[in-house]
């Protein structure tokens, strides 16, 4: 499927692929062993690169496209289909704030307003110091302990304004968040 090289020829004057790092390649290579062909690894490769780089830049996208021989437009289709593949830079910590029905009943909108006011950011925005990005998610599967948000890999439950302040402080101090409830 060398036709991909055609698709990248027209974009190459705007974007230059970066070199994938050794550890990225190692992890992608591992994923390749789990699938019948390398084109199937597209999504996993995007996740691997995001894990290492924080987000997927155009340069990274093109690098994966070249490495796996997937047309760059197709890979972009995958990347943009999933809300949590970040195609724009995000802060050091990504806050996924649930605005679904249970959390809404439990007053999540007040908490969201509190976070926005405290950090000076709305949904989709990143703090000026690059620490936090706030994003809405439809559900985090913890409705009995709403309101809920996830920061990086950690779930935070039964949120209150005070609790949110403490969580933000924890991350600012580089302390890992709570694991259980």
């Amino acid at each position: 499927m060398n036709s991909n090289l055609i698709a990248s020829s027209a974009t190459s004057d705007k974007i230059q692929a970066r070199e994938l790092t050794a550890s990225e390649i190692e992890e992608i290579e591992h994923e390749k062993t789990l699938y019948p062909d390398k084109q199937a690894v597209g999504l996993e490769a995007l996740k691997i690169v995001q894990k290492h780089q924080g987000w997927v830049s155009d340069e990274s996208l093109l690098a994966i496209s070249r490495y796996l021989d997937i047309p760059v437009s197709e890979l972009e289709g995958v990347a943009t289909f999933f809300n949590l593949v970040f195609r724009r830079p995000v802060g050091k910590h990504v806050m996924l704030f649930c605005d679904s029905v249970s959390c809404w009943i439990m007053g999540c909108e007040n908490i969201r307003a509190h976070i926005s006011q405290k950090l000076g950011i709305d949904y989709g925005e990143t703090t000026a110091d690059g620490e936090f990005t706030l994003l809405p998610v439809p559900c985090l599967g913890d409705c009995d302990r709403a309101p809920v948000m996830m920061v990086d890999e950690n779930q935070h439950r039964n949120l209150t304004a005070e609790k949110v302040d403490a969580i933000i402080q924890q991350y600012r101090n580089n302390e890992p968040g709570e694991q259980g409830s």
Partner: protein
Amino acid sequence: MAKIVIDGVTYEVNGDNNLLQECLSKGLDLPYFCWHPCMGSVGACRQCAVKQYRDADDQKGTLVMACMTKANDGSIISIEDEEAKKFRANVIESLMISHPHDCPVCEEGGECHLQDMTLMSGHNYRRYDRKKVTHRNQYLGPFVGHEMNRCITCYRCVRFYDDYAGGTDLAAQASHHHTYFGRQSDGFLESEFSGNLVEMCPTGVFTDATFSAHYSRKWDLQTAPSVCVGCAVGCNTTPGERYGELRRIVNRYHGDVNGYFLCDRGRFGYGFVNSAERLAESQQGKGTGRRTVSEDEAVLELNRILDGGQVIGIGSPRASVEANLALLQRVGGDNFYAGVSDAEFAQLQILKQLSGESALHAPSVREIEECDAVLVLGEDVTNTAPRIALALRQSARNRADELAAAAGIPSWQDAAVRELAQRELSPVYLLSGYATRLDDIARATVVDSAPGLTQLAQALARTLDSAAPTPAATLQEEQKQLLGSIADDLKGARRPLIVCGTGSGSEALLKAAANVARALATARGGDQAVDFCCVVPEVNSVGLVLMAGETQSLGLALKKMQAGDVQAAVVLENDLFGRAPQSQVEAALAGVGQLVAIDQLPTRTTELADLVIAGTSFAEQQGTYINYEGRAQTSMQVFMNNQAARPAWKWLRKESETTLAGLLQTAETTLEGLAGITAILPVSAAAVAGMKYPRQSHRYSGRTAIQAAANVHEGKQPEDRDSIMAFSMEGMSSQRDTAVLPNTWAPRWNSNQSVSKFLDEVGGHLRQGNPGRLLFTRNGSSAGYFEPESAAVTTGDFTLIPAYQLYGSDELSARAEVVNERLTGAYVALAPHDAQQLGVAANDLVTVSADQEALDYPVCIRRSVKPGTIVAFTPAGQFPVAGAGDQVSLSKAQGSGQARFGNLIVSDLQQEGI
């Protein structure tokens, strides 16, 4: 046959089809978006919902998607059911939520499938009053405009562009109400078939940017059934004119040739018709002495020359049969020469010889799609006959249909069939001079020069039939294995296909390809003809070779001219400098008394002519063209040239009473190859009281005022004395005869989707029969295998392979202003290793020298070029430095080239250094 009941009426249907297909085939109106006869059903848009009942007692019924439901025998359905109607109205209301109210400024307005379906579904009041989703549009190149806000997310664009046409640079992005159809970033669409998006999109997301630049509504265009002159496939088109200018070209359905699709050269390459360079008037004299002459003066002068004796005529593969015939009849068959290169002439003679052989069959495009094993020998069909490349891509998918049939899945269940087949394809073997755009569907590719491919083909013929001649060379084990697989696949296929053509530039390869086809016919029992598709370069290459005598080559004509045996030469729509080496042409022109050139655009030949006659473009004349399979097709005149250009056959006819039909009738009796050609002329049997078929729609606006800026009097419509069509809104209804149908329209169906109303079944054939006629009569047995010939030995370090480009190999489209942006210039492609050895980088100039000629070419580096060969692209109008398979020498030249690699769409271009 199955019987189904639709709204109380019983219909006989094909039970393997889906309900939507059958409803449309029966002429019923059922709205749809995502379904397409060539792409099957995915059930995405939910627009074709109908009510289906279990049995006659079932009063309630269930809603089903017609496109996803088989038309099983005994099915009872209702389109008119109130619940189904309400469902469809609700679906379209949802689809339309973010659709803008911009119909008055949208190019699709008036021929919009979405408008038609909205009206048909009864959604005529929009309740949604919130903010609409808006998108940023992309620049997609000079051909296709992008307006994403109009999208209703039916996915037809990507299903055509990616799934059907094999494109890789357009994809669906994001999800739910943000879904976006575009490229990863701005840039021209790379597919050779991108223009079909304009017709594929049910609304105005993808529009014809060349049309937008001088827009008219569909009903304001004067149109006529025409044939594309871009290559030898002969796709049927509908060109549209307004104010004396050709405004656009859209597809015209032909069940055997192009079906629903055109290539971008054919669709967007029409600008030469409107070119400011056009020869508007005839001219006499050379250099500074050249002056414009009136029509009468031109005729007198031309007749004086033609009647003066010792005149030769040089015909043209891009001129109509009639134009060539008129010239032939004026100068006599012995003085009529084929205006193509000598190498091509020799190849065309072989094709002519093969055209009578009953063991071979020249397949139509539709038949190519049905083939399930393909061998391509030395022809880059994507660049020489693009519509065939699109067909080959479909033939590779026959494997998927076989798998589906075995699993009991109907072939129209597109998503299911693709899921089942994954990457499994029918065998396609590509043996070519360089990497091609079809490589991604190939089971195996071999890249070699013509002599190398010839050896392989000879060996393959021998593998298939032990009676075939012994190949000249012995093969390596690897090659033997490959040939074994190819032979097995071809023998075992339901319908195998051999594709070759004049593109390889090699007579020997063409002969070897014919041997393969003959051997295959024998290996398969000999009772069935084998599909043998021989691609030729131009719209009427076949017509020309059927008219010119077997020895009447251009080389011979040039020799006679040079020797001073000729008083005058009449060159018809041809630039001799593109057909023979410059030195030969110059010597010939120096020897000839007078040179007459008839053409539409100035060329190096018209520059040197004593008399230049202004000819018309395809759109301004009626003419017949014979395609690669020997299919003669009539192209009707679309509009009248409003300057002094006239069709070549009119300039050349001796008697002013001679008609187009008269020319063809004479030809039929005098030229064996053209027997039966008069049968293609549209007949006006149905015409009452001399009425003709109108070229203008019944909604054509402003006819009485169209000339008001020039004259307050309402001018008379130009009269068409040559055909059964009129430059008028009045006359016979053309709806009953698709041979004179100026454009596709039916009540309630303003878009091109109305074509279903003219077909025996959707995706089938035109009800009155597909226009045109196959001229080859195959009643001869084979003359026996061609014996391999030892090639003449030439000296040099590299073997030359000629290359072709979609935008650049065709003389006329290359002169369209809009194509200029995508034009590929001359280049020589080298293997990375050879480039390194020569110390040249991309964009450097190299001098390519053969026996007597030497030319400088810019270099590009292509990874798949075979070391020791060079791939040379020479644009139309220039003559290559050497022929295919010739040995040439290369040396680095001073300076760097004006290479246009940015437009070079090849899969193996080495990026570095460009």
